[in-house]
């Protein structure tokens, strides 16, 4: 349970928050250790059994020992999961005319923060994604700059794994640009090369005024019908990118209606 974000099931109730506080107090009283970032093992009656801090919990052997000890103490019998597993990262609700985009970003450095990539979803309404198209009939070499507001929206999460306790855009953009140039034409379809630059400040921790900077060049392409009514593929990747002088990679892709349907959206 996140201490701030509602998560995939929505915000926890006041009763649920109070229960977590009770558990926190129970562990402290029994001197079993507690924290805002912590693993708690409860007995079936809800009382405290054992726990681990985040540093220890990140070691698979230590975590396995904790769980096996709990099973041993409680005499837990093997069985099917009591809750059906489901993906943690799922696309948000969208309308038929929306463009759904998925972003993966990962630092190329090591450490606990970088063991899993971050994933964000972005939904553009039809009036928004229509701004991706040129204002005239596409022809080879036609080039146009993307609207700054849309550019900022597209690039808002182009940074590696950091702590985000809200959906607030915490960026201070110094430079954000995306330029499209038609490089290929087919029967009723066109491809535009995307080139861009992003320089922005994004503090690793919210509420801390640290000068953590993203510096990235961007590359991608947009496949669309020449009449400007439909996007086939939108892809944007970091060509070269650093955050706090450490390399990272990010990739944004449009998600087809078929894929969204397969994901249950």
């Amino acid at each position: 349970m996140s201490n701030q974000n509602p998560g995939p099931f929505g915000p926890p109730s006041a009763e649920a928050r109070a229960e977590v506080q009770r558990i926190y107090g129970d562990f402290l009283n029994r001197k079993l250790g507690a924290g805002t970032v912590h693993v708690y093992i409860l007995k079936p009656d809800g009382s405290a059994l054992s726990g681990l801090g985040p540093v220890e919990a990140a070691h698979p052997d230590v975590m396995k020992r904790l769980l096996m000890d709990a099973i041993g103490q409680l005499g837990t019998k093997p069985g099917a999961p009591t809750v059906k597993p489901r993906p943690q990262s799922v696309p948000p609700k969208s309308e038929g005319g929306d463009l759904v985009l998925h972003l993966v970003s990962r630092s190329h450095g090591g450490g606990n923060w970088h063991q899993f990539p971050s994933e964000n979803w972005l939904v553009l309404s039809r009036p928004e994604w229509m701004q991706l198209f040129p204002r005239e009939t596409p022809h080879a070499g036609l080039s146009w700059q993307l609207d700054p507001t849309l550019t900022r929206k597209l690039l808002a999460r182009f940074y590696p794994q950091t702590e985000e306790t809200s959906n607030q855009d915490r960026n201070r953009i110094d430079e954000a640009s995306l330029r499209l140039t038609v490089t290929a034409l087919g029967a009723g379809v066109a491809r535009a090369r995307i080139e861009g630059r992003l320089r922005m400040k994004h503090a690793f921790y919210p509420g801390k005024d640290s000068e953590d900077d993203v510096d990235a060049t961007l590359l991608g392409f947009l496949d669309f019908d020449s009449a400007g009514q439909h996007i086939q593929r939108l892809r944007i990747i970091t060509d070269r990118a650093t955050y706090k002088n450490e390399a990272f990679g990010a990739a944004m892709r449009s998600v087809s209606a078929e894929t969204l349907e397969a994901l249950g959206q």
Partner: protein
Amino acid sequence: MRSIGVLSALTAALVGAAAAENFLADDKLAGHVEARVHELQPTRDERKLDLVGWAPDILAAEKLARTGNRPVFLFTYDGDIGTGRC
């Protein structure tokens, strides 16, 4: 005659579909970008958290624990585990 008619209708439908949605083949740019997109996607190992069935909240978890005589695994954290930004 009937089969020829069906074939003609099918052919017309396929031509219509092709006209409605043509695609450009991947060139050097598209190939390079798509490869990088693929390379950065979460791996099967990185998706193992999705194999865990998480209860919607602590109250639901405790109810399941009581009825199934199971322990509860509660993980509290700062940030958003769904985005990996935590």
